[in-house]
């Protein structure tokens, strides 16, 4: 991790984020938690799964649970298309996939560039918003993957 202190006010360590799109909003997750990005393959539904679980995929012989990120974020559902991707992440010592509309790029931010998220949503729905960063092309919403699910929910998806 590189440290900088430029003239534009940003300071602190540089952090890389993988950005993805959900309903035209751009979100970022720490690149260190991203294992790989996949085109959407067969997602097999599993009985008794919570609503935010789309199903499971076979990733080179390993079963990976795929989370419906739109549903988790309270967004309306959409059809999977050519730009849809599954980002395989590691969080809370588990490997899971999150389905997103598209993966955009990798951006570098300095810690000082990250602002606290405006306190507008309910505590429950905004707990996984780590902060926001202002960029030329709009706001980048940074997601704390560890808080994407509650402890109980992480345990529950570990079933599969």
């Amino acid at each position, binding site marked *: 991790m590189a440290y900088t202190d430029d003239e534009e006010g940003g300071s602190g360590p540089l952090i890389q984020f993988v950005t993805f799109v959900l309903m035209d909003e751009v979100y970022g997750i720490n690149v260190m938690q991203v294992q790989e990005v996949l085109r959407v393959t067969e997602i*097999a539904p*599993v*009985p*008794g799964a*919570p609503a935010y679980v789309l199903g*499971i995929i*076979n990733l080179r012989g390993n079963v990976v649970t795929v989370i419906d990120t739109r549903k988790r974020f309270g967004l309306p559902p959409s059809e999977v298309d050519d730009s849809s991707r599954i980002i395989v992440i590691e969080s809370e010592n588990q490997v899971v996939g999150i389905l997103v509309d598209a993966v955009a790029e990798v951006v570098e931010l300095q810690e000082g560039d990250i602002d606290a998220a405006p306190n507008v949503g309910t505590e429950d729905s905004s707990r996984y918003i780590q902060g926001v960063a202002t960029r030329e092309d709009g706001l980048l919403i940074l997601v704390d993957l560890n808080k994407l699910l509650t402890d109980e929910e992480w345990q*529950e998806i570990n*079933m599969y």
Partner: protein
Amino acid sequence: MSQPPSKSLTQIQNVAQPDEALLSYLDTLLSEIDEGEMAPPVTSVKAPSAQADTLEQTVGEIETRTETAPGALADVTRRTRGVPEWAELPFQVLLFTVNGINLAVPLIGLCGILPLHTPISRLPGQPHWALGVQLNRDAKVVVVDTRRLLMPELDIAQAERSEQTHLLLIGNGERGLSVDSLKGTITLEKEAVRWRGDAGQRPWYAGIIVEKLTVLLDVDGVVEMLAA
């Protein structure tokens, strides 16, 4: 009768400490030895290792070297290790679908297959998962709505549009799981299944057939659910 554990048994405890499930198993094993007839002491165990494979081999050795309460032992094994005894050898499973979801049941837990006759005789005061009763020769089979039993998250009104065609008889043939379609049988090795770690919240869940991305049912767990 209470005796201090032998040196070799203490070694076994040390081996198992990193793994809670195995610890529970070994606790049971030790208590059986304390209370009952002492089996010939285990004279050698494998060297301690964090590798799960080695631990499982060690447990396997203990199982073969002790003769205490085999029934209880088998039960604990089923609950903690996830891999049932019958899966140690190649086994066959029947693939089927329920509401578009692929499922499988081990043939060893299956009593038979019946075509689902409609209308089914509905009885008052049935549990939510019971569709009614169907006759199989002179026996009465309780028809279980597998969708309601395993998939409470489903919109049942929508799910009920799927056509159920067969009953998989389990639990001495007294219960029949309704299914949409049968997809044939395949033979598996235990490595083909990602077995559950413990009983968890879904007693019907035995594991996932990785290659097929198909949930394998624990028939005993299903029968227990239906009896509850």
